[in-house]
């Protein structure tokens, strides 16, 4: 704010409403110190405008890029996966194994489900690594 209570920053930044702007412009004609103050603000803004705009070094990966497509195991709902494992276990049990106690069957299913979940974690890790390699390749191609 100037000594004459005029916000020259707002004026120079185009943030002053029309009536205030008109009053400020009229005041500037008769006040040298305010003219100097405005000139300083405008000079600073003009210097700031000299900052070079940088190009994006490599393009932002698009959501349609293959790298962002879910893998087949990611598309697989974990509940559905667990249910499938259970169904498979029942079928295998019915056709290939002698009858076993319910508790043993449940334990088996539990183990298979846990194994499947562990594999999904590994698949996810592989997927992340693949993404990193993909991004590095894009970067290298750009260079």
């Amino acid at each position, binding site marked *: 704010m100037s000594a004459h209570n005029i916000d020259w920053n707002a004026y120079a*930044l185009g943030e002053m409403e029309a009536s205030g702007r008109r009053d400020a412009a009229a005041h500037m004609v008769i006040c040298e110190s305010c003219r100097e103050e405005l000139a300083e603000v405008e*000079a*600073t803004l003009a210097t*700031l405008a*000299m900052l*070079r705009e940088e190009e*994006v070094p490599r393009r*932002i990966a*698009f959501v349609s890029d293959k790298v962002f497509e879910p893998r087949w195991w990611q598309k697989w709902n974990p509940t559905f996966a667990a249910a499938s494992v259970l169904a498979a276990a029942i079928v295998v049990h019915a056709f290939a194994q002698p009858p076993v106690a319910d508790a043993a069957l449940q334990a088996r299913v539990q183990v298979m489900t846990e194994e499947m979940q562990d594999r999904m974690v590994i698949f996810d890790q592989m997927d992340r690594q693949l993404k990193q390699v993909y991004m590095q390749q894009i970067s290298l191609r750009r260079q």
Partner: protein
Amino acid sequence: MIFREVEDRDLIAKARRGDVEAYNLLVSRWEKRVFNYLLRLVRNREDALDVSQDVFLKAYQNLPKLAEPEKFAGWLFRIAHNEAFSLLRKKRPESELAPETHVAAGKGSLLPMELSLAVETALNRLNEDQREAVLLKVYQGFKFEEMAEILECPVSTVKSRLYTALDLLKATLAPQAIR
């Protein structure tokens, strides 16, 4: 600017209906502005690029929640602001130890490249809040009210940060100022 807003609104509507290509186009239109804002804020190219990537993914995921498509720019920069400050908070000790750079000494006319470097150095000497206020106002052209929404603070705070920054820049850049 008005045409840009209209086109953005159209692209946003298409993207919301599942048109991925429309969103990709939106990314192309905004990536340079977002990247430059982040670059000046986090002061590291790789970090700025990584955060830009996160910003556009987050924006895509949250596009259905954007209540007023005409405010896309402010909304996008708000995501960028949050992501940038999240990173800065994580890297705080490192950034505090970053060596301070000095404004090129000497008076008289400077080449555009030198002037750009002087401005960059002067901006780096501001604190993060002040620098961000300058970035949003001077380089991105947001209104005070829009900045207040992006930064989630009152307009008076926005003005205070910006005016303090301009005073500091005025003093630092005076020898190089274009008159």
